[in-house]
């Protein structure tokens, strides 16, 4: 894990994500809307967790709480040992930039930066100031996702699959222990989606990262160590595939 000035060393051993009775409520037009209701789940370090369910089930809300982008209305959420509820905006930002990698369905690359600059930016956000090292590492990551010849292109000049590969390289640029992916293959065709799935598998296999992925893609679900089924904001079931149980 990359160190920051606000590094929190209170991690519960073995658990990357630990939700206890977590609920989330939004006020829309003055009326409360329940997005999550008493969810208890945990993801061990090094695991791939898939969160599945229909649209509106609360998958993205779970991901946002893990990232510290939103706080639970009730319950306790600990991520890599950090109590999300008890942390302020500043420490959550520092925690996120050092410990969490993001992969979005819509890629969300910074439009004015090239592929390699988007990757390097993450290192700067994490406070890595050795520009020579950053450049070298960026080159390696861009090469890993197979975009060496597209490194100096802007997001608008790249295809959807290429943009998602940049997003993956960016997600691991600061070497975070936890990667969050929100329907990473949702906007891609079968073939391109498969390439992304393979890359995600490499993150687990070669880099030993913990992955929490919301998805409808069976290929990702098959890859998962634990599957959380969400429905209407509630946790329906938790599956652990036989290969994991064995």
């Amino acid at each position, binding site marked *: 894990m990359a160190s920051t000035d606000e590094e929190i060393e209170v991690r519960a051993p073995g658990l990357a994500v630990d939700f206890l009775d977590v609920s989330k409520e939004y006020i829309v037009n003055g009326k409360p809307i329940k997005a999550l209701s008493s969810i208890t789940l945990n993801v061990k370090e090094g695991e791939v967790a898939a969160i599945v369910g229909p649209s509106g089930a609360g998958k993205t809300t779970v991901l946002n709480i893990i990232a510290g982008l939103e706080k639970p209305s009730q319950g306790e959420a600990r991520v890599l040992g950090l109590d999300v509820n008890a942390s302020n905006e*500043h420490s959550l930002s520092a925690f996120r930039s050092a410990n969490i990698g993001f992969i979005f369905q819509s890629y969300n690359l910074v439009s004015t930066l090239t592929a390699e600059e988007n990757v390097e930016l993450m290192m700067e956000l994490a406070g890595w100031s050795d520009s020579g090292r950053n450049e070298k590492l960026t080159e390696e990551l861009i090469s890993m996702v197979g975009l060496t010849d597209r490194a100096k292109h802007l997001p608008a000049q790249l295809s959807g699959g290429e943009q998602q590969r940049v997003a993956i390289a960016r997600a691991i640029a600061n070497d975070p222990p936890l990667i969050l992916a929100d329907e990473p293959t949702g906007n891609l065709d079968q073939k391109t989606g498969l390439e992304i799935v393979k890359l995600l598998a490499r993150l687990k296999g070669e880099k030993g990262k913990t992955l929490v992925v919301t998805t409808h893609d069976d290929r990702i679900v098959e890859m998962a160590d634990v599957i959380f089924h969400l429905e209407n904001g509630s946790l329906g079931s938790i599956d652990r595939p036989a290969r994991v149980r064995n």
Partner: protein
Amino acid sequence: MEVWGALIGPLGFATKSLRRRGFHSYLAFLGLTLTVATTTFLLLLGQDLATRLGDDSSMRSTFGISWLIFAYLVLALGLIGIVGLLSTSYLVSSMISQRMRDIGVIKAAGALPRRLLSYVTFEALLVIVSSCLVGALSALLAYTSWSWPSISLFKQVGPIANAGATILIVVPMISFLLAYMVASVRVRRIVGSSSVNAISKQLANLDLKSLGKPLRIGRFGSTFNLATRNVSRDRGFNKTLLSMGVCICLSMIVLSGALVSADTSASYVVRAMPPHVLIVANSNIYNQYVSLATSFSRIAPLPPIDYGNESYIISPQNASAFRAIPGVQTVDTRLITMSSITGYVKAHFASNQDTGENINTQIIPEVDTGSINALIVGINATSAIGDWYTSDGFLQSSDAHYTMIAGDSLVGNIVQTPFNLSQVSALGYRYDVKSALVDPLNAGRVLYTPVETLQKSLGLNGFNVLLLKVNSDPTVLSAVSQLANSFGLAVGSQDPILNSNLTFLNGIWSHIFLVPIITLALTCGILLSYLATNFSRRFNDYVILKVLGANAWYRLSLLTWEAWGVLAISMLIAIPLAWGISIFFLVPDPNLSLGDLELSTLVSLSALSVVSLASATIYSRRLGLTTVKDLTP
């Protein structure tokens, strides 16, 4: 609402689009309205000040100083007009650019270019027309509610002048025409370009030439690097920089020009009436001289007086006695009289050979240019106290006896240019006019001639006014007073007269300073529009950074660099240019005060920096309220 909803065609499209785009439509309308209102109000205010000054100049001030103020106002109004037009053009261009993607989508959906053109142009027209109308009305309201009676130095307080009515119609009309032209050209260009380019808004807005340089952490850190990329990769950056640079430069010329002109006009007065000067004369002449010297700033009838009365004359021996007092540096011996003078342009040859035609020399006969009462001052050229601003120098001991230097208020009517053809008839003699000077004495209706010549004309041997340049030692005054009393003469300092004249001049400038201040406000408005447009356009990128872990300080720092960076570059271009123009081209023989230039720069920089920082802070706070849900695909 249903009535509008049911409408089809350009009007329905435009009203729905404007209503649904809410904040952006409002911003475009507000920016354009403020520009039209401010430009129109400033031009109304400027022409009003200039008109009132023109009406008043025959009574007070001097022609030279009024001309300087008038020239400044004309220049300022011209520059304000340019700033207003630039701002209008920039705002309309930005407004249309924001519609680029929608235009591309509608075109890709199969809309005929002509129909698309009419729909989008009509939408722009609605904003432009309403902005021009509301802007003109706001300007009129601001102008009529202005508290004119408080400007006591202007004698005329009246309704809006004809020129004002013209401005009120012409400025919004020109703004409308320009805005319509810019909108038409921009829309035609977008409609004419590929739909793919228009739809891919990001790509269309980015400059691809500067890609490929590594993102190195430099001296100013990560946010500076990122801001540099964001700004420099904006395709419209150069155009923005040019527009901002020109607007800032012009507003700085208006501001520093006002400061330089104000100081220069004050320096003309100080040069003519320097401090630490004592006036010595018979009490009647003394009072008359004080009235003459303050006629620049006060309307008071001059009582008739016999300037040549024997009892008022100070003999050369008595005048010399003052030179012997320690602390008296110079004794300026003067003989003054009021007389009717007549101006002439001498008979002379004129040829058209300069035009390249056949030489056809002809004699132009002498022309009488009219008569007026003027103060004639006989003066010793070598001991004159005063360093007047002159067109061709002051009297020299080598000058012919019948030579005169004309006060600036006589120039242009009694005294014509070129001066070598101009003559003045006074006290039965003809004098050649050598030069003109700016002089508050008798509000510039004054003529200087060698004292011996005037003594000869009046048949007098002596002086009726002595000006003594003294040092700052207070004992000098008592020594001078003692000697003056022994000769039956009155003594007084010229300093209160100088202060009174300077206060009057400052009063005029304090009202005129409203023009540069509002011009600066207009430039701040342009900067604000630019920043709002660009921050809104890149807002999604900022949200991504927040989601990725950029903290509040990082976000504020990035936005500040982006906002202030553009301002800094624009000012780097604008400041030297504005200084150069203000120093070298604005006023003759300027009084250069580094403090003036620093002040104008500091004021501009502070005002614009406040706008930049405020915009960055507001957007940073707005960014703090966003969540990952605010990210747009």
